[in-house]
């Protein structure tokens, strides 16, 4: 047990602060090999993590690196540096604190390696890079503690897996190292604890007082929400009223496009000229930093934002959080709300703004879940093997290694604890030889097995290329958007989006309507045209799927005789649905068919989440194509898939036959764009594809070829290759989400309710305004291209060719 040195007690007392119980507990358990603290924001969580370090270092006498702090955000590392240096300076402690991120200068980084500070603040990627150097043992040998901040956020992605692999390496370099994890409230602390600990060691979990329940409600407006649409434009006046009543309001949106549209409308209605900003991941760094600085300074009354503002940054004095659109995940909602409030033991205040009546139902279900403290989360699979491949390559950069030793290190990571030796050897073989059935690279192996049994890089110069590709963050290729004649970028759009633009098209970025003029040296050139309504406002970007738990709550809510808990307008809307069709039930699939606008529509309510419903749409249209029903396209939401086509579906049951679906799935999966996208991600992480570096793109000539070609070639000649196996497993869990289709099939067991109707139903109505309609490809696509070519040839007067 470590006691708080008197110098700290005096410093605390001078500020009138007391030490929180969980901070005291952290000190008492400072010697635990692994310790996970679950605490709400504002509870001095980070200080709790650092107190044992500060106490130990306050006497001086420690040489070299003592504590490593890892956070998911560069900005967070910089923040913590500021916050720690103040007490250290005021108490005149002999402690040197530095940060090291992608933004740290080259000379500073060199110096840090030669003479590490006592406390180093960094990110998982910078840590992986440090571990790839040959002097890693010297840098980390003296390490006593590692603190992983926001571990709940890291654990949701491959960045967490990479970090835990790095910790296993650190543990070998510094066997005395103790692990501390700091987490927000999560549904399964034990799962995170077992990821943090050195397997099979136990990990103590400390729960801080979670504080009072958040004061969270649905925004009630005089105007009724519409039946369909995602903009929540109806709520603009009510939202502005709330902004006026509070000091600082954060207005969260589920997508960037929605944030842009909402911000635009908010400005048009903002007759009082309240200072309101916008913040999302597609805006340029300069723009985002400006908004963040203004927010901290208290210069903004409201910020319209997306998840990019979700993590750790000190938000200043936020007293209201508004969530526009239904929250797709209760856990994320709670964390978002909790984070806004930095006053310990005061309830945070939040309002949900449903965009349409279906979202009213979703919001009510989410509010009930919050009240019941029923957090959601899907169980994770084992440790991803693409990340392991990268880890092996990083290990090789640091010098020769023994496979057996590395294997046992990897198995000390919770997520990889049941990795078989064969699976490990697969990854090692991939790193060494490419792992192809055709052993073509015997001459050019990346790794060689030396006569002493150690593995090493064939060509040490390869280390530099490996280091340049470290990391697991998937950045899509983006293009900067600049006003013509201006130097500063407005933001970024995805290359795919830019490719769809023709001069004259308008779109929203940073709250401005801009007109696309052309592409110049990989920059999208635009001019200001605020007079025209934006024609396009789509950024790609991921939409989160509704969690299974939330979907089930909504189905339970439907299964009531009436709905006293719902606003009158929404209860009436559900009553209408019940009268004209039926409400979906948890153990049956409701299928509605009806004609609309000259097309036959079929709408299936599966409640399996957006990704799975999208997959279902692809499978159903494929089967319909085979049956000659001429499907033309489909759209999917979290709860339903709607398909339109030239012929009516009279018997939908075979479309949902489980064995049919599984067969179709096998054929469909191999040629699928989602698979290619997933492959690209996994192959980049594993080092098969190199990241598109800015300098190589700037030349204009596309030296690299599409990763789709690699995928097609592998699928044709080496279908059992490790990368394809990884791709398949990942797609099943992620974008394809086949697991939830299986869950739907198990839950409904072939019970199909077919309602053949004369017109659109209340529940299907929102589908018509849903973004992301998918045209059905096949022979149709070639015909569309040919017709377009024919038209262009005729215009050009060369049709006789």
């Amino acid at each position: 047990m470590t006691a708080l040195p008197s110098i700290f007690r005096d410093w605390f007392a001078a500020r009138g602060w007391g030490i929180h119980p969980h901070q005291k507990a952290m000190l008492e358990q400072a010697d635990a090999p692994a310790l996970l603290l679950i605490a709400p924001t504002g509870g001095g969580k980070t200080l709790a993590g650092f107190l044992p370090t500060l106490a130990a270092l306050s006497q001086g006498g420690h040489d070299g690196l003592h504590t490593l702090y890892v956070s998911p955000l560069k900005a967070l590392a910089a923040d913590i540096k500021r916050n720690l240096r103040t007490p250290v300076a005021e108490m005149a402690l002999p402690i040197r604190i530095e940060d090291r991120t992608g933004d740290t200068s080259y000379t500073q980084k060199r110096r840090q390696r030669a003479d590490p500070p006592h406390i180093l603040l960094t990110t998982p990627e910078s840590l992986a890079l440090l571990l790839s150097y040959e002097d890693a043992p010297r840098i980390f040998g003296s390490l006593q503690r590692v603190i992983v901040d926001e571990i709940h956020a890291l654990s949701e992605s491959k960045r967490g897996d990479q970090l835990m692999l790095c910790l296993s390496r650190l543990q070998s370099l510094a066997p005395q190292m103790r692990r501390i994890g700091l987490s927000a409230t999560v549904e399964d602390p034990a799962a995170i604890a077992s990821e943090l600990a050195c397997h099979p060691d136990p990990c103590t979990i400390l729960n801080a007082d979670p504080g009072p329940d958040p004061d969270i409600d649905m925004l009630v407006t005089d105007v009724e929400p519409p039946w369909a649409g995602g903009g929540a434009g109806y709520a603009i006046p009510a939202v502005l009223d709330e902004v006026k009543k509070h000091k600082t309001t954060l207005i969260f949106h589920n997508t960037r496009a929605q944030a842009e549209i909402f911000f635009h409308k908010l400005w048009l209605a903002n007759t009082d000229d309240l200072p309101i900003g916008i913040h999302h991941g597609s805006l340029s760094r300069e723009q985002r930093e400006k908004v963040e600085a203004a927010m901290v300074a208290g210069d903004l009354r409201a910020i319209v934002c997306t998840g990019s503002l979700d993590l750790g940054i000190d938000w200043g004095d936020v007293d209201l959080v508004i969530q526009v659109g239904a929250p797709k995940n209760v856990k994320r909602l709670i964390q978002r709300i909790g984070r806004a409030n930095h006053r310990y033991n005061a309830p945070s205040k939040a309002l949900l703004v449903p965009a349409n009546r279906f979202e009213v139902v979703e919001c009510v279900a989410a509010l009930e879940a919050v009240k019941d403290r029923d957090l959601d989360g899907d169980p994770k699979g084992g440790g991803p093997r693409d990340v392991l491949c990268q880890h092996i390559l990083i290990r090789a950069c640091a010098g020769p290694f023994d496979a057996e030793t590395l294997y046992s290190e990897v198995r000390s990571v919770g997520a990889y604890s049941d990795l078989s030796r064969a699976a490990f050897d697969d990854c090692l073989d991939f790193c060494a030889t490419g792992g192809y059935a055709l052993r073509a690279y015997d001459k050019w192996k990346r790794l060689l097995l030396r006569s002493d049994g150690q593995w090493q890089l064939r060509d040490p110069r390869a280390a530099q290329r490996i280091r340049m590709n470290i990391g697991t963050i998937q950045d899509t290729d983006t293009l900067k958007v600049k006003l013509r004649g201006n130097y500063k970028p407005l933001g970024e759009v995805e290359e795919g989006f830019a490719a769809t633009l023709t001069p004259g098209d308008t779109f929203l970025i940073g709250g401005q309507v801009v007109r696309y003029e052309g592409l110049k040296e990989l920059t999208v050139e635009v001019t200001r045209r605020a007079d025209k309504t934006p024609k396009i406002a789509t950024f790609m970007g991921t939409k989160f799927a509704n969690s299974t738990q939330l979907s089930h709550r909504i189905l339970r809510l439907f299964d009531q005789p009436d709905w006293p808990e719902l606003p009158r307008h929404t209860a009436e809307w559900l009553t209408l649905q019940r009268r004209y069709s039926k409400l979906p039930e948890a153990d049956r699939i409701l299928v509605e068919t009806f004609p609309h606008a000259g097309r036959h529509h079929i709408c299936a309510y599966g409640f399996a989440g957006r990704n799975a419903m999208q997959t279902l749409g692809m499978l159903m249209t494929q089967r319909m194509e085979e049956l000659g029903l001429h499907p033309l396209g489909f759209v999917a939401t979290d709860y339903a898939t709607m398909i339109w086509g030239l012929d009516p579906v009279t018997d939908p049951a075979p479309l949902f036959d489980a064995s049919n679906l599984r067969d179709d799935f096998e054929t469909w999966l191999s040629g699928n764009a989602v698979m290619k996208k997933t492959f690209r991600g996994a192959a980049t992480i594993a080092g098969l594809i190199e990241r598109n570096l800015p300098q190589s793109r700037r030349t204009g000539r596309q030296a690299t070829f599409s990763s789709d070609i690699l995928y097609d070639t592998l699928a044709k000649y080496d279908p059992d290759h490790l990368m394809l196996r990884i791709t398949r497993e990942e797609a099943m869990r992620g974008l394809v989400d086949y697991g939830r289709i299986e869950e739907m099939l198990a839950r409904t067991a072939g019970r199909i309710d077919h309602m053949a109707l004369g017109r659109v139903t209340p529940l299907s109505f929102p589908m018509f305004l849903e973004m992301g309609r998918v045209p059905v490809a096949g022979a149709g696509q070639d015909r569309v291209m040919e017709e377009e070519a024919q038209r262009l040839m005729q215009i050009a007067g060369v049709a006789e060719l």
Partner: protein
Amino acid sequence: MNNLHFSFCDTALMAMPSGALFVPDTGILCLSDLHLGKSDRIARRSGRMLPPYEVQETLSKLEADILETAPQMVICLGDSFDDLEAATTLADDMQLWLARLQAGRRWVWIEGNHDPGPVNLGGTHSGEITVGSLTFRHIATGATAEISGHYHPKHVLAGRSRPAFLYDQDRLIMPAYGTYTGGLASNAADLQRLFATPPIAVLTGRKAIAVPTAA
């Protein structure tokens, strides 16, 4: 049929969806930028090991085109090998396959910037070749009635980018035939300055489709 017949400098030509060009009058099958051995060269130079199946895939495509057109002469329009070392280290079974394809017809390797010297495989080697009124060389010179490669042109139609032939009344630029090849957009300055007026693009894919590049 998926091939596209058109006339260029008074010669009837046939663009194939694979990216090959056939001259029916003289029985010439022309292909450009095969870049055979690309994965080998990348592994040698960077340690990155791409799926080593691209030679197999390119030769399968070539075999199908030869079966379809039964050419008297095959012209490989340069950059047939990713570098000269790739040409000499081509796997034995791939060399045999190539020899089988060469049997019974003339085979001309045109020099490219990637493979400037002669290769130790069947066929003759040449800087350029003129047959009838058409001249075949790797890089366009500005001469008329010229068929060349080198630039790997691509063109976007209805949101899809495909390797494409580009031609006007004076010259024709071939798409890259090799499996592991990237491309240059048809509106890139390097390509546009080769043509006095916006050229016609013939897209490859499932079917050869002609479209004007200036709409």
